[in-house]
């Protein structure tokens, strides 16, 4: 089947690229950039082809490859596309060339190493989304940290060492407990059913006692929640974002954070449905706290990168809320919201990077009236701001609206029956979060684009062709997802149904909110 080979190629292209850079001549920076951009574009093209070929009427895996890797343990190299990962794979491939191109002028030190790192991160992220085997997933999940660690540490801002160590140690702490849970889970599957396997499809069938499920979900959830990040495990994010080079921030916000929510959707909740039912009120509360707390923090930041960093925490709270609503619209909204946030946050970080390259400061107070100085920049900025706020016709609206719809749909019956009022309260607070979102983004845009004209560095040149292309592509994607969400929704519909069924069939009586 050619699709399966193409999927393998999509995964391995960045790795091949990193190998190519290793042997390519040093000092030829343009060659390095060209190779990376070429490979990333090829990857995007191939992924696009697969996206079109992806049959939304087929449930489960498509274009699957399954080869034994550590046969005696039941570990396989198993990758494939399904409704869970198709949009995220597409997002990853889409951002690849944009990240590459965005760093052309910003990175002039150790260019070869930098692009090798970009390619390795791309490889690991693709791998983590595509993996259908828990061992493989874990390997990719952890591998991701290494290039990111180097990227922040080598090309970051003045407190980069602190930020990158914090990033690594935070995420590694979650992973180490997840590792224990992974081993325990597989071993339990082996003792209860006799099946020795790391395949997601087999692991879902293991029905462990509630107590065990609780511990295992706690371990998985800790790891995923750090990555999302959910309050109160979010403190690494602002540091990492602020210190990272633009490309690093874009990768972090665009794709890496989605690993956490994807992990919950693909693994955490379906593997431990009973424990999920038990934890749902707590997780939902944390999700809503993240929405509101993230928004409040974004409201008071002076550093423009920090505003977007905290807004990420807020926006990913919606994803968690949607996933936990267990309503089809909510789940699909969560997936759309993941992609939408990936596009919008990536775009905003790129724009911050562009202004930083020109003015070398991220102080919000240092800017004002940019609409007069940089008209093209300001148009793009305003569009992305409104997408972040969730204005209709943009992708942000589709995601947030569906999530909130799902949350209310799930919250109403228990409220009407007088059983449980918590979900309704949470849903109402989450709506208030939307208002807060508008508040902090508009405050940002207002101070940034309007008011007295000031910029720390004049004269400013407006966007060049490369920057316009990058932002143009993102804006097109934002509108496409906002105006025509049908196609993506159809691709993910069966997976959302499967997820709903896996998680909700086994709800504990009485524990359901």
């Amino acid at each position, binding site marked *: 089947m050619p699709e399966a080979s193409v999927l393998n190629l999509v995964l391995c292209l960045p790795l091949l690229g990193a190998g190519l850079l290793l042997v390519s001549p040093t000092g030829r920076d343009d060659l390095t950039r060209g190779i990376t951009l070429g490979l990333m574009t090829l990857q995007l093209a191939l992924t696009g082809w697969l996206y079109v070929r992806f049959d939304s009427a087929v449930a489960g895996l498509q274009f699957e490859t399954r080869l034994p890797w550590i046969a005696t343990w039941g570990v396989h190299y198993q990758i494939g596309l399904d409704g869970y990962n198709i949009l995220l794979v597409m997002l990853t491939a889409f951002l690849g060339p944009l990240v590459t191109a965005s760093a052309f002028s910003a990175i002039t030190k150790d260019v070869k190493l930098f692009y090798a790192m970009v390619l390795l991160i791309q490889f690991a992220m693709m791998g983590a989304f595509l993996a259908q085997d828990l061992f493989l997933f874990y390997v*990719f999940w952890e*591998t991701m940290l290494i290039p990111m*660690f*180097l990227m922040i540490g*080598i090309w970051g801002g003045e407190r980069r060492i602190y930020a990158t160590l914090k990033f690594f140690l935070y995420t590694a702490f979650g992973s180490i407990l997840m590792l224990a849970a992974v081993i325990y889970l597989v071993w339990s599957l082996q003792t209860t059913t006799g099946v020795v396997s790391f395949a997601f499809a087999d692991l879902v069938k293991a029905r462990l006692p509630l107590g065990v499920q609780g511990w295992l979900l706690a371990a998985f959830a800790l790891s995923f929640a750090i990555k999302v990040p959910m309050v109160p495990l979010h403190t690494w994010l602002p540091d990492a974002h602020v210190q990272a080079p633009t490309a690093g921030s874009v990768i972090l916000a665009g794709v890496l954070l989605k690993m956490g929510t994807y992990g919950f959707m693909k693994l955490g909740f379906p593997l431990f449905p009973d424990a999920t039912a038990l934890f749902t009120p707590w997780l939902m509360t944390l999700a809503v706290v993240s929405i509101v707390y993230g928004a409040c923090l974004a409201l008071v930041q002076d550093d423009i990168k920090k505003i977007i960093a905290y807004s990420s925490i807020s926006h990913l709270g919606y994803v968690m809320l949607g996933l936990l609503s267990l309503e089809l619209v909510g789940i699909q909204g969560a997936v759309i919201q993941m992609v939408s946030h990936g596009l919008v946050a990536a775009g905003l970080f790129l724009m911050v990077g562009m202004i930083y390259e020109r003015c070398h400061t991220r102080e919000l107070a240092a800017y004002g009236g940019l609409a007069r100085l940089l008209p093209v920049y300001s148009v793009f900025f305003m569009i992305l701001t409104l997408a972040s706020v969730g204005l209709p016709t943009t992708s942000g609206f589709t995601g947030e609206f569906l999530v909130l719809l799902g949350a209310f749909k799930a919250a109403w019956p228990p409220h009407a029956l007088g059983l449980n009022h918590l979900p309704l309260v949470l849903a109402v607070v989450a709506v208030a979060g939307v208002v807060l979102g508008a508040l902090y983004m508009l405050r940002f845009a207002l101070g940034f684009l309007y008011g007295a004209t000031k910029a720390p560095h004049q004269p400013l040149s407006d966007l060049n062709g490369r920057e316009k292309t990058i932002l143009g592509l993102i804006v097109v994607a934002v509108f496409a997802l906002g105006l025509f969400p049908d196609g993506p929704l159809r691709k993910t519909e069966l997976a959302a149904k499967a997820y709903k069924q896996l998680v909700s069939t086994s709800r504990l009586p009485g524990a359901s909110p």
Partner: protein
Amino acid sequence: MSWRDILLAMLPEHLLLLGIVLLILLDIAGLARRGSGQIPSWVALATVAAAVWAAAQLSLGAYAAAPFAGHFSVEPATLLAKALVLALALPVLLMSRGDFDGVEFPVLLLSSLYGVGLMLSADSFLTLFLGLEIMSLPVYVLVLLAYRRPQSAEAALKYLVLGGTSTAMFMMGVSLLYGGSGAMDIAVFTRALGSADSMARAGVVLVVLGFFLKAAIVPFHAWAPDAYEGASVPVTAYMAVVVKAAVLLAAVRVFGQVQLASPMLELVAVLPLASIVWGNLAAMRQASLRRMIAYSSIAHAGYLFYALLGAPEGRMQAVTFYLLAYGALNLLVFAALPPAADDQERDRLDHLQGLFHRSPFAALMIGMAMLSLAGIPPFPGFIAKFLVFKNVIAAGHTTYAVLGLLGSYLGIYFYLRVIQFMFMSDAAPTAAAAPLRRHAVAASLACVALTVVVAVFPGWVISQL
């Protein structure tokens, strides 16, 4: 017992002996004097390579024999482990070129390896003791060989005294076991493990502590940082990799096919756990690379002894695989270490600052080794750790496994710090770009090749063990 068996079963040992004799003859004939080229080094390399080849061939041929029944026997698994441990000595020999002239270093190393061979095949405590001593005695001298530095003498003496203590404890334990059972074969130990007799138990505890001392397990670890720091780089590499590997494999052999139960279980779990935690914590504060590696190896000895908690069938596999990954990566660090004006400077961690800009190859190699030792995927150290903890959890000791994993988390920081020095700092003011030595590069490439094989085809490697 036939002559054929004696010849074949001990072929690797015979070859090593032959090499030793040859080297001494060369020295007498005046061909190994200083300045006469690298003849002794080549002879030693060829000898070890031949011994590795012999052990591997015998193992592949599924050869099993007991030329001295009850004292010395070989099976395919033992022979394979022997081949691996001996093979780990090859990079040590390669990287020692230029550090040592003359015949002393190769002769001592080969003698020590002869002891390793005996240990791995020992069926009785007599042979085991003989092997342990033949392995250790040359190492005391090897530490002293770098007496250009005053610390070397101190380190060697400390190592000697504590090594003697270890031997004494070991012998005391063996004599208690012998007193209780009247036998010297290692099966006595497994029987005593489950016995409630206090003398047998005391014997077991002493023997285990003897192993712990040799492998540098907390609280018997204090010699390791000093000895590692005092010795020159190849000797440190030898101690950290080959000696440790031999001790662990001998321990696995002695523990035999018995599932550990309380109270011996606690003995074998708690002290290694303390090692993992303390080794990783103490490593954070080191300014000397070799001291850091010493503490790291104390932690790794903890993981290795953890493997004994697992089911007996999986122990050999887990320990061998772990040693393979750990050995290859540890050797890689030492082989890739850039040369410096003097040994002391070479040892300082800040000497590594900005290494990536001076010597990208060395920085990438050391960085890879650090990540692997930290147990971060996709490097082989992760799979090795996974295998060990999988066995521990499968044996039902989940609490110990979780504690051990948390202990391993403590170790991540200091490995990352080395990477931070190499990639994220500006060059140390004193450091100058130094040309790579050809043999060191060959040694590191050999280790990298091994690492890649283990990382990409772990399934194949595990199924071979």
